């Protein structure tokens, strides 16, 4: 191996990666991302330290950004969990976006048809309906993959686009259209998510699901079967694990979790309480892809994902300060996330290899 490689360094294959190493790797990747982003900040005439200070003080200030930070962070947690379950079985669910849209439809359908229901009933009903819609959409992808052998990456992505237009169909000039142009009607007040400790209660639901998933994947018989399939589909076949069954199951679980986020997102933030304009809900939908990176960085550990998602939420919310307070150009906030995604990916290298110096012959 000569190309693009320093002559004195050698890749050494890792057999297994410990949790501690994984944490170190992700922290280093973040540091690199911060350094790279500093370059962009300076390019725009800002002082990096000052800018980072602004980002995090805003994001974690209970009076300012904290509730949004948590809200967005836990939204990403939903997506991450929706990615982790299928990935544990070796399947790429990149359909969280579509499952989330379907969950949105499921939740709103209940709210619009039963606006006068008691919140104690309406809200669980909305979440359940959202989860079911999402699960159905996930199961569809699972069916395509498990029974018809369709590549799940392409299939879920196509389903995402279809779901985007489904929401569009309902909101823009459709049956759910509101008074304002291209948004939906507002949710009835009874559907709004109660706030606990600065954040919507559904954030705790996300944490609860994360804990349950951790236990499920680690200790249940089904979770074990999922992990066997994820590690080796051939081995799974040899011990009588049915791949199609597990495939549909994990995609449904993933879809259900992503679908539940449909309620969390729109009913959990006072800025919404409705489905916003297509660009806006698409921008939220794009956030679901973070689930992929975080899931991989956390080695599919759903508990380890929690701090990561909150951190990404804080960047997402905090970096809006760059635009609003420091008058830096629009889009710098999303750029920051983009840079992190690249360093995350590049540091995946260290999940399989370590660099070792060797003596030259």
């Amino acid at each position: 191996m000569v190309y693009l490689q320093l002559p004195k360094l050698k890749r050494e294959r890792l057999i297994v990666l410990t949790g501690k190493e994984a944490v170190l790797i992700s922290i280093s990747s973040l540091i690199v991302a911060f350094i790279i982003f500093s370059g962009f900040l300076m390019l725009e005439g800002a002082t990096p330290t000052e800018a980072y200070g602004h980002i995090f003080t805003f994001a974690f200030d209970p009076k300012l950004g904290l509730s949004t930070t948590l809200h967005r962070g836990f939204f990403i947690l939903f997506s991450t969990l929706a990615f982790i379950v299928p990935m544990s079985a070796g399947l790429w669910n990149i359909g969280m976006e579509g499952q989330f849209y379907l969950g949105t439809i499921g939740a709103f359908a209940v709210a619009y048809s039963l606006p006068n229901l008691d919140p104690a009933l309406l809200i669980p009903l909305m979440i359940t309906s959202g989860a079911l819609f999402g699960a159905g959409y996930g199961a569809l992808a699972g069916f395509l993959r498990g029974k018809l052998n369709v590549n799940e990456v392409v299939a879920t992505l196509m389903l995402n686009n279809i779901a985007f237009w489904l929401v569009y169909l309902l909101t823009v000039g459709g049956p759910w259209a509101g008074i304002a142009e291209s948004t939906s009607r507002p949710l009835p007040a009874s559907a709004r998510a109660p706030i606990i400790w600065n954040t919507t209660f559904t954030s705790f639901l996300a944490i609860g699901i994360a804990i349950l998933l951790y236990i499920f994947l680690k200790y249940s018989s089904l979770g074990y079967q999922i992990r066997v399939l994820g590690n080796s589909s051939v081995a799974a076949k040899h011990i009588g694990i049915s791949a199609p069954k597990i495939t549909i199951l994990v995609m449904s679980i993933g879809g259900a979790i992503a679908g539940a986020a449909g309620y969390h997102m729109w009913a959990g933030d006072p800025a919404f309480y409705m489905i916003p304009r297509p660009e806006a809900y698409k921008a939220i939908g794009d956030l679901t892809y973070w689930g992929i990176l975080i899931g991989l960085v956390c080695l599919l550990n759903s508990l380890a994902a929690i701090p990561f998602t909150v951190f990404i939420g804080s960047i997402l919310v905090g970096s809006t300060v760059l635009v609003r307070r420091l008058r830096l150009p629009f889009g710098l906030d999303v750029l920051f996330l983009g840079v992190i995604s690249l360093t995350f990916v590049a540091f995946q290298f260290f999940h399989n290899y370590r660099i070792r110096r060797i003596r030259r012959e």
Partner: protein
Amino acid sequence: MKADAPILEVRGITKRFPGGVVALDHVDLEIRPGEIHAVLGENGAGKTTLMNILFGVLQPDEGEIYINGRRVRFRSPLDAMNMGIGMVHQIRKLIPAHTVLENIILGHPKTESIINLKKAREEVKALCEKYGFNIDLDARVWQLSAGEQQVVEILRALYRGAKILILDEPTTVLTPSEVESFLNSMKAMTKEEIATIPFVTHKLPEVFAVCDRITVLRRGKVVKRLGTKEATMKALAEYMVGREVLFKLEKPKVEIGEEILRVENLSALSDKGVLALKGVSFSIREGEIFGIAGIAGNGQQELAEVIAGLRKPLGGRIIFQGRDITNASVLERMKMGIGYIPPERLGVGAIGNFSLVENILMSIYFDHEFSSKGFLSYKKIREYAKKIISEFEVVAPSIDTKAAHLSGGNLQRLILGRVIPRTSKLLIANSPTVGLDIAATEAVRNRILKCKERGMGVLLISEDLDEVLELSDSIAPIYEGRFVRILSAVEAKKEVVGAMMAGALSGGG
């Protein structure tokens, strides 16, 4: 003339591997133009390492290589090829989806940027005629037999103008009829001053018939160099093995009981959709080891998979203890007491990323004894795992060690420990000792004999004829998807079975 100037000379080659293993210890070798010079040695004698060094895959720690008296250093196989060395690998380095011709001309300096297929075809055809190879140049490589694929590799080397041809176990994949034409081709090469160096473990007689000189390797050292005329078969075998005593297994005397498994006229397709198993019938009784001997790719893999429930049969029936299980699932069969030991260990028999406990769990995850309400009882499982690890003598720091860290022998012990205690009736052992060292091989064979003692039926599949003969009560050589015959251990002579698995004798004879 030939005798004077060696075309290839190897002096004092030494290669050490990490962990202090000396694979080659000051090995000398001298090859003259046009000679056939066999290198003999057992597995682990250092043959593979020597070949890799001669072909530039590995670099030696010490020693020199000379070609036509000039010192050379190979940094890559390409260097070796440019110096006129060709290599025929045992694990084929061919592209299955491409045609024979494409494989031969690939990467050749002479191949034009815009390929002139007509010209290339004529040149290769000329080579074929000269050396007596008969092959369809437009066939896709995956459609060819192992022997034909070997021809493609030889042609590729010759097309490149190789003057020295290294052959890795050339005769193992050949059928008897192919052997003869292959040996003729080797002689034809000799006339063109092309030196061939077959590296051989098994099938001594064939090579013996044509080669001029023999070098015997043992444990990384050259132990003997001799001309064919001075050698006898018996002496060669002794040189190869040394004074090491071959272990002898005590076959336990076991009452053969009732029939456990009956297979009727079973046929199946291979992964590529070719009819690989063509109507096989046999039965296995309690306490019986039924051995299937065959060269890989003759349908034994498909047979094992069909019986284990991994592959759907095309036709035929499987009767297990009087019940038709032809359509039963893998899990149902496992629960009935059928266990399968696959030939591949990591990734099939065991999962590298899983701890030993999780690996052992692979055979009991469905058992209610080890779980309640859908959750696994890890306490019980760990205790069980500990018991298995000590009983099957798996050497590992702890039961939480990842299986990827285990050596091949330990991994196979782990897999046996996972499967055998949960198997009460029928064990299917597919190539259970392939690639293992002597101690591990012995341990595995003893385990299989213990299963017999327990009154289980065992279906043993192996390419190692000695293994099949030593362990089995009934022996079925398999060739092209059919049993040539089913012999009892008493009537099975090694030469006869060997010829049968090579397709030499038909069932009637």
